[in-house]
């Protein structure tokens, strides 16, 4: 293995760890807005690490540029979708659970 492949392996394994943590947050957080937080934040770092790590494995410039286009597109669309989802839920009348006691929504 070359040095680039070792760096890429570390990056994609770290990205999959962030993805699993985000999915556990999506499954276990009590409120809808906290679930948006877990999914959005962990998705962004997971996409950056996995596609950035795969770019280290790329054999030609064309594949690297295609991966860069996928990365830019996902980085533009994932926060936009999270924002649109939170805005639609807030306008539909769901309010975030605040305070110490919290509770299940």
């Amino acid at each position: 293995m070359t040095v680039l492949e070792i760096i890429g392996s570390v990056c994609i394994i770290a990205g999959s760890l962030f993805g699993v943590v985000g999915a556990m947050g999506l499954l276990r957080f009590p409120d809808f807005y906290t679930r948006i937080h877990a999914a959005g934040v962990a998705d962004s770092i997971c996409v950056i690490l996995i596609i950035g790590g795969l770019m280290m494995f790329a054999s030609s410039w064309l594949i690297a540029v295609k991966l860069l286009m996928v990365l830019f597109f996902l980085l533009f669309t994932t926060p936009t979708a999270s924002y649109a989802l939170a805005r639609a839920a807030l306008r539909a009348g769901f309010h975030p659970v605040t305070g110490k006691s919290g509770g299940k929504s």
Partner: protein
Amino acid sequence: MISLGITAVAILVVIGLALVRAFLGPTIYDRVLAVNMVGTKTVLLICVIDFLGGNGDFLDVALVYALINFIGVIAMLKFYHDDSGDAESAQAQNSTLQQEEIL
């Protein structure tokens, strides 16, 4: 590559957990959030599978899949758009929508 295999299995686990949330989700927005996460992770899985055995052709598929996923989420939110003020009526409407199971 062993690391690509580990990453593919981890992405499949993430898709499974998000599908559990999509089935359990109390509101329609939880389901849309989980389906959005499944779509994003599917794009990543297509990229990883391309590096496992392909020759760069699946990356175009991944790009188009990302586009369709984004447009699908926005269209779903427009479809369930609701301006009816308070949470009780919205939750009542959501529960009736879940009972009918239109989609």
